[in-house]
């Protein structure tokens, strides 16, 4: 139990510390820790948590920490994971805020940010690829032609600036109609 809590803490400290690019870019880090390294969740469960995070308020990184912490080690696990993912943000932002004026126009800081930008885009793409083409068959996101129809319609809706919560709810209803009723 202590070992699990410690591992949970380390994983979420890492996710918080390297979580550049916010929400979706953090997904590939979370996936790498939670599904690949520690096998706490399957691909499908991971995807479900992302869906739940979309429908509930708050940053996805915090949501996933609370949820996965609970799944892995109960209420204590969720407290540990949530605090661990927030700690690097708190520490680094405090430092940045204090030295903000000196850092703001620093060309090295700007260089670092610019150098990481394409990596962040790649990380977001990898999160999508991991869900479309998982390494194992368990919990596939795409199971039949209807999956691709829902995918295409959601992409279209998102390009038209339709609220993501509305899109998730609509696809859930579509899922009930397609897979639940027949």
């Amino acid at each position, binding site marked *: 139990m202590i070992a699990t809590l410690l591992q949970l803490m380390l994983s979420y400290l890492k996710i*918080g510390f390297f979580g*550049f690019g916010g929400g979706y870019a953090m997904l590939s880090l979370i996936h790498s820790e939670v599904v690949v390294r520690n096998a706490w969740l399957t691909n499908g469960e991971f995807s479900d948590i992302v869906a739940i995070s979309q*429908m509930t308020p708050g940053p996805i990184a915090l949501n996933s920490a609370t949820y996965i912490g609970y799944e892995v080690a109960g209420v204590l696990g969720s407290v540990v994971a949530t605090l661990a993912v*927030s700690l*690097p943000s708190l520490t680094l932002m405090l430092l940045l805020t204090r030295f903000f004026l000196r850092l703001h126009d620093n*060309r090295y800081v700007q260089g670092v940010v610019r150098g990481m930008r394409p990596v962040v885009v790649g990380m977001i793409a990898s999160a999508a690829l991991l869900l479309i083409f998982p390494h194992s068959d368990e919990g596939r996101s795409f199971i039949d032609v209807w999956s691709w129809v829902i995918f295409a319609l959601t992409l279209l809706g998102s390009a038209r600036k339709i609220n993501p919560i509305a899109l998730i709810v609509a696809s859930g209803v579509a899922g009930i109609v397609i897979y639940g009723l027949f």
Partner: protein
Amino acid sequence: MRGLAEIFWSFLKIGAFTFGGGYAMIPLIGHEVIERRGWIAERDFADLLTLAQSAPGPIALNTAVFVGYKRRGFAGALAAVFGVIVPSFVIILAVAMFFSNMRDNAIVDAAFRGMRPAVVALIIAPIIGLTRGMRGVGMAVAAAVAVAVWYFGISPVWFLLSGAVVGCLYAMVRGKEAQR
């Protein structure tokens, strides 16, 4: 103490009403800290966002630290951070406790089968905006990172560190050229 409670309360609202995370939260945060409270000047807000996006971690959390610290130092930063965390924590914990019993329900399972491809679409959608204005090298790096993380299971941390080092070296070389 009243000041701290005010900070906590403001960020509790931000944490409780921002769905979708990240960029979706920015207008709401702006409204609360600029217009309603007058804690941050409009021109400082753009700087704050640059900073919050350059630092690791959720943007809402980073913004909370900045605003809280500016208002009330370390205690203010803590009050703001807990404000953002509490709603998300309480709601997700409730969902997690409830959901484990519901997961085997056929209707719930069907709903999630429908939602999974939609989640993938929502993850892909922002990439189009992010790659706009990116040059060939950047695109190639993004594609290489995507394949390395997805297909070969390499931790994205290594690529972030490499990107940071390369960006820093590039800035150094450029700086030397400019001095000549």
